[in-house]
């Protein structure tokens, strides 16, 4: 078995694997993650300003 056949075998073995998660689910999770990140950044900015105010 030559190198190409080995690699083809790997590709074939994986060919039946599919990700069935709908795009809408991905987008919803991404949106939730982005909202959390924004809230965290806003809180950090507020803390930073508050800290500077007391310096």
């Amino acid at each position, binding site marked *: 078995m030559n190198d190409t056949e080995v690699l083809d075998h790997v590709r*074939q073995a994986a060919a039946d*694997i599919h990700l069935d*998660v709908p795009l809408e689910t991905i987008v919803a*999770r*991404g949106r939730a993650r982005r909202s959390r990140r924004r809230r965290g950044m806003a809180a950090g900015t507020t803390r*930073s*300003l508050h800290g*500077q105010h007391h310096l």
Partner: protein
Amino acid sequence: MPTRRGALIVAEASTPATFDATRAVGAADPPPGLGGPPADAGSGPAHILSRGKQVGPLMRIQGVVHDDADFAAFYEQSRDACLRAVRVSVTDPQTAEDLVAEAFARAWARWGQVRRHPAPRAWVVRTALNARVSRWRRLRREVEWADHEPPVADDANARFDDDLLAALRRLPARQREVVALRVLLDLDTETTARVLGIAPGTVTAHLSRAVAALRCDPPAASNQTPTMEATR
């Protein structure tokens, strides 16, 4: 007011700018290709305000604007390949699916950056594998205390040849990564080298060694498909 890079854009007061963080790139814009210029290249009607400098009617928050159609195309083209690459390292199919979905969600949240990555698919795979480590750290204590039952494999996604998969997992980590990127994600040698931070020649050497190991691995080599036999 202190600003964090990429977090705050100030609009000029004289500009009657409309702001929609989720669709700041105008609908009339043609979706740029996956390998094309970045969304903030400044072409088309969706001109951008950046750091208070007016360049058009819309303003954007850097790194947040999405071109949903562009991401959808990327997702459709890449999701299976990314899952296959992650399955090389993650045993449980359901966990692999969750990790890849989470990685795509992170890619969506940072699409403005991810689309400019030299290999967005590789970014997704790397993010999924990093999330796996984070998840493992988080669950480690829980597993010690809880009755842990191994998850049942999902038939639909358990078709990856078990012997071959086991042989792939026996490879050294670097060789496994090279196989995942070069073979399952179908990246070229140059891109694989850039993603892994190694020389192209090293990629070739790792792939050659991996192929040699797979060829010599008795279970993987003995489990040949009829098609493979016919090509001999």
